[in-house]
């Protein structure tokens, strides 16, 4: 029992929690991005995909709950870590210089907070429609919820698009450090593979950023257009 308590309260377990929940969230992001890219296949493909997800019913809620738990664990653990780290050095240096630590690694808490705020807004915007109740009333010709038009309408607002674009850049910045860091925390560090892990971190972060960014940019530049019959509110 003492061993279990010690394991649960140890600093290394906190790191492992950050890495493991982060891994699940990165995999979710890749899936979410792949789903979003169906915007390029047109209204029918996008709405079919959206309806398939909604059709999962109970399973959808299980997935949502699991992701929510991952996010909450990630956030709570990061606050615990930050609090402990803040207390570990009561007197700051008068002069501070960093030799190696990247800007991305030193700003994880700030990019993290901004991403969390963005996720809250994003859910209110496109999932719950709290900010734009009219989105709930959009239906396509087959009577399905018209997710395609909702996204185009959403991103037609330049200000909203800019918020999404800024958030994705911050997300990539967060992930540059996060993905590489995850390997180290889980004990993967080898001279032979470290350059590959570094490259993977940059690549995955960039893919996620470009994939998500391409949609608001596509709408703003008119590459993704509203189908006939939907009026811009």
């Amino acid at each position, binding site marked *: 029992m*003492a*061993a279990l308590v*010690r*394991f649960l*309260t*140890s*600093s*290394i*377990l*906190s*790191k*492992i929690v950050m890495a493991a929940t982060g891994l699940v969230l990165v995999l979710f992001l890749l899936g979410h991005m792949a789903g979003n890219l169906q915007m390029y296949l047109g209204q029918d493909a996008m709405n079919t995909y959206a309806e398939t997800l909604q059709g999962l019913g109970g399973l959808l809620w299980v997935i949502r709950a699991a992701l929510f738990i991952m996010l909450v664990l990630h956030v709570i653990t990061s606050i615990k*870590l930050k609090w*402990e*780290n803040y*207390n*570990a*050095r*009561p*007197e*700051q*240096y*008068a*002069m*501070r*210089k*960093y*030799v*190696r*630590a*990247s800007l991305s*690694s*030193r700003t*994880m808490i700030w990019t993290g907070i901004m991403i969390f705020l963005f996720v809250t807004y994003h859910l209110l915007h496109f999932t719950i429609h709290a900010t734009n109740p009219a989105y709930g009333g959009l239906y396509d010709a087959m009577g399905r919820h018209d997710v395609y038009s909702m996204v185009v309408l959403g991103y037609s607002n330049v200000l909203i698009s800019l918020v999404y674009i800024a958030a994705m850049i911050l997300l990539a910045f967060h992930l540059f*450090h996060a993905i*590489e*860091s995850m390997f*180290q*925390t*889980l*004990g*993967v*560090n*080898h*001279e032979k593979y470290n350059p590959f892990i570094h490259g993977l971190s940059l690549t995955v972060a960039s893919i996620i950023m470009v994939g998500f960014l391409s949609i608001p940019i596509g709408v703003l530049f008119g590459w993704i257009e509203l189908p006939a019959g939907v009026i811009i509110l």
Partner: protein
Amino acid sequence: MKLKLHIWRQKSTQDKGKMVTYEVDGIIEDMSFLEMLDVLNEKLILNEEEPVAFDHDCREGICGACSLTINGIPHGPEKETTICQLHMRHFKDGDEIYVEPFRARAFPVLRDLVTDRTAFDRIMQAGGFVSANTGGIPDANAIPISKKDADLAMDNAACIGCGACVAACKNASAMLFVSAKVAQYAYLPQGQTERKRRVLNMVAQMDREGFGNCTNYYECEAVCPKGISVASIALMNRDFLRASLSEEKALDR
């Protein structure tokens, strides 16, 4: 060589402490940084002022006593160099230099630039050893150890326990120190018997001492005067996870 020094002065652990500016002249570029401070202290003593207290012992870069943060970098700007081996030729005439102690809650300042680093000793007492029966000296090479493992064990054993890793870390984490001490035994057959208990007990003691958490800045590796690699931290993370899941009874202290 004439220099302007901003030095942390603090009378005792309870004292508030502040940066004080001093001018020092007649510095020769072949002097080490500590010898430069000796020159300053001689001047202060002649002026009947309190000399600046700082830790030093061997002045050969192997004891781990010297512990200054120079211009925001523990052990100063030279790679893999302790402050006693940092020479004034790396500075220019007229330079302004900030001299501060290693800062961490776990390393309270005793006076000026001297910190109490016994937290490291307590971590070592928690598991940084191998238990062996006394008796005759074993035959050399009676236990085969591969060259690679022997080298890795030696690389980690090079840690002098100075605490620069803690001082450099944004979180004041002691992970590089503790991982070097875990790794130096993990690579050797003699270290296997107590391997799981060692990592669990040393990490537990590290947490009790109030160090911060590792967030993989790798600033520790960059300032380490002995070039300890953060690969040791990954090894410790692996060992900790494995030991936590498999050690049936951890020895609590």
